[in-house]
């Protein structure tokens, strides 16, 4: 159980990115009435931006 918790928390940045940042970016895009480039939907755009940020946060162990 402890190992599971440790693993989950180790991947915290990725989980936070996909759990929170992705939908947040997506909803901000929609709220701003902005159309993402290349015909991307707000959700795909959120996945790209949030996912990338999450991977960076995961590797660096920090967001900023």
């Amino acid at each position, binding site marked *: 159980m402890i190992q599971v918790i440790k693993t989950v928390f180790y991947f915290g*940045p990725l989980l936070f990115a996909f759990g*929170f940042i992705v939908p*947040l970016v*997506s*909803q901000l895009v929609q709220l701003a009435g902005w159309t993402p480039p290349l015909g991307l939907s707000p959700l795909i755009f959120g996945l790209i931006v949030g996912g990338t940020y999450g991977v960076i946060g995961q590797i660096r162990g920090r967001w900023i």
Partner: protein
Amino acid sequence: MSLPKDLSTLSNAELMRLEREIARNHQGHFPYLAVTWAFANLAVWLSLWPLVLFGVIPLWVGFIISTLNIMLCYLPSHEAQHDIIGRPGSKWRWLNETVGHLSTIPLTLPYRIAKLTHLEHHKHANHDELDPDASSAASGPLACVWNTIQSGQPRAKGGFNAYGEALARIGRPEVVLDGVIYNIVFYGTLSALAWNGFALEAALLWWLPRWIALIYIRYYLSWAPHHPATETGRYRDTRSFRSIVGNLGSMGMQYHIVHHLHPRIPLYRTPMAYWEMKPILEARGCDVHEL
């Protein structure tokens, strides 16, 4: 009580007797304000969710109120951490523990973790390795803000991340589980709201207000009263200071030195105790020149 005009001739034992006499006069008073504050603050914060989600109040209003709520939620728990509301075995003990557990929910800080690590902070204030809040030390106000942001990063050493080590050191590693549960609930709630179309509401009612509150609380409760945090010892690890936002704006922390010397004095009585005690503090060589 009135103090002798010349304290320089008194021994340390005599100074201590006078100091304790003043402290005794301020202890044992029931902190009605802190108890009312704890429940009212939590009730307002909880009510923001339906009010904002159902469109009764705009999100920006909710954001401001939530930020204030979370900034204010720590101190009632702080009174409980020092058993000020009800000592163990007293008739108000249940209330003490209820306030302790409930008031810091918006801050996502479990009571047992807050209490155990805070008591360690009192025992070892400013000690590089033993003070769980040692990472609050910073060269100036902006450095303190930046330091708090850095300490809150996923794999940072300071901030809440330092509390696990402190709990292990005092033989209470199991209490970390409280933090695990709080974090799962916090991030789980944010994610559930976000994926159901309320990401902005989650961000502005909890995530961002919590960050602002953490910076504010750490600034006034941890950094300012202990700055420059280079000395240890009863009369040198904490100071009084003058806040540009006054005593209310700094949550009464201008007089935090009294709290460190006599933690059982309720927050609302620390200014009175400070002014009565000030000549003794000066005689002891405390840093009380700003106030």
